[in-house]
C-alpha cells in the first residue's frame, strides 16, 4: 500500500524545511503531486517517490540516518529503510547482494560487502533482542553508485552490551577498542564475538572504509588507518551508527 504525505510530513521525514521541498519541486529534484480541492491546490508526496529519491540521494539519506541515531524522539522511518525485525533485514540484505552482484566490477568482492553488512546488521538484532530501549530494528540504506552502506540501530550500544561480560570497561572508547580487537561476547557464556574482528580484517585487507559510532566514541578504519583510530565525538549515539564504504 502506497501512503501519501503532506509537505509538512515529507519535510519532517526528509529532515529538511518546506522551503527546500518547494525549491526541489521547482527544480525537478523531487516533484510533488497536486490535489485540487475546489480552488485550493495542495502539494502531496507519494511514499514511493520519497523512497526513490532517497535511494538516489545518499547524502540526504545519511542525514536522516544520523537524525534517527541521535534524536531522543526520532521521526518514523520510511518503510524501505526500516528493518523492524531480522527477517526483513535478511530480505533487504539479499536485495543488496543481488544489486551488488549486477556490477561487473564487484564480481569478486561483493560477497565481502554483504558479509560485513550482515555482521554489523545482525549484531543489532543479536544484542538487542527483547531489550530495545525504544524503536526496535535497524535503519538500513545503501547507494551502489556512491558505494556506501549505512546501518543504524537505537539499541543499547556497544559499551552496555560488553559490560555484561566485562563490567570494568571504563567508557565507550575502550568498548569500541575491545569490540574490534578482542574475541569477547556480550552474550557470554556463548562463544561469540568475532563478527567485528572479521569486519575489521575485511575493511583493512580489501581497502574498504568504516565509520562506526557508539556512545560518544567514533572509530574510523581503513587501509591507512589500520591501527584503530578511536576518538571522542560531541554527538551521542545510544545504539550504533555505521557507514561502510567499499
Amino acid at each position: 500500500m502506497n501512503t501519501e504525505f503532506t509537505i509538512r510530513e515529507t519535510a519532517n521525514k526528509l529532515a529538511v524545511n518546506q522551503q527546500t521541498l518547494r525549491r526541489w519541486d521547482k527544480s525537478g529534484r523531487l516533484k510533488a503531486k497536486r490535489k485540487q480541492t475546489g480552488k485550493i491546490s495542495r502539494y502531496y508526496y507519494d511514499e514511493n517517490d520519497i523512497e526513490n529519491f532517497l535511494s538516489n540521494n545518499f547524502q540526504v539519506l545519511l542525514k536522516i540516518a544520523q537524525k534517527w541515531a541521535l534524536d531522543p524522539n526520532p521521526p518514523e522511518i520510511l518503510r524501505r529503510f526500516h528493518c523492524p525485525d531480522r527477517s526483513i533485514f535478511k530480505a533487504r540484505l539479499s536485495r543488496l547482494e543481488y544489486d551488488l552482484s549486477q556490477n561487473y566490477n564487484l564480481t569478486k568482492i561483493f560477497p565481502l560487502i554483504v558479509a560485513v553488512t550482515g555482521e554489523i546488521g545482525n549484531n543489532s538484532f543479536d544484542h538487542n533482542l527483547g531489550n530495545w530501549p525504544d524503536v526496535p530494528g535497524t535503519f538500513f540504506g545503501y547507494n551502489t553508485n556512491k558505494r556506501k552502506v549505512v546501518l543504524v540501530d537505537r539499541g543499547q550500544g556497544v559499551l552496555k552490551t560488553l559490560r555484561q561480560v566485562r563490567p570494568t570497561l571504563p567508557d565507550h572508547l575502550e568498548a569500541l577498542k575491545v569490540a574490534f580487537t578482542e574475541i569477547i561476547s556480550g552474550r557470554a557464556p556463548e562463544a561469540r564475538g568475532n563478527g567485528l574482528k572479521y569486519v575489521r580484517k575485511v575493511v583493512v585487507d580489501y581497502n574498504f572504509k568504516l565509520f562506526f559510532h557508539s556512545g560518544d566514541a567514533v572509530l574510523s578504519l581503513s587501509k591507512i588507518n589500520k591501527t584503530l583510530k578511536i576518538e571522542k565525538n560531541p554527538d551521542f549515539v545510544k545504539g550504533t551508527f555505521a557507514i561502510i564504504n567499499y
Partner: protein
Amino acid sequence: MYMVIELKKFGTTLTSREEGREALAAFKPSLSDITDSESVEVVFTGVNTFSPSWGDEFFAPLIKQFGTRLILVDTKNLSVEATLNMLEKIHNIKFTRRNEAE
C-alpha cells in the same frame, strides 16, 4: 566413505547466527550415522555470502565432532575464504581444503 553437505541447500546468503544454528539443527540427525572412520565434506559451491556468525554456529560443533575429518570443498569465494580464516583462528584449527569441486 564420506558424507557430503552442500551448504547451498541451506541458502546462498549465510550470515546470521540464528540461521546457522537452525541449519545445524536440521542436519544433526544425519550426522549421527557417520562412523569414526568416515569424513565429512562440506561443499561451498553456489554460496554467495558466508559470514562468521553463521559459520561459527554451524561449524563449531562440527569441528568438535569431526576435527581433521572435516574437508572443505570449493572455498575460493572471498567471503568464504575470509570467514574460514577467522574460524581457524578462533578454534585454533587448520581446515583441510580442496578447491576444485570434483
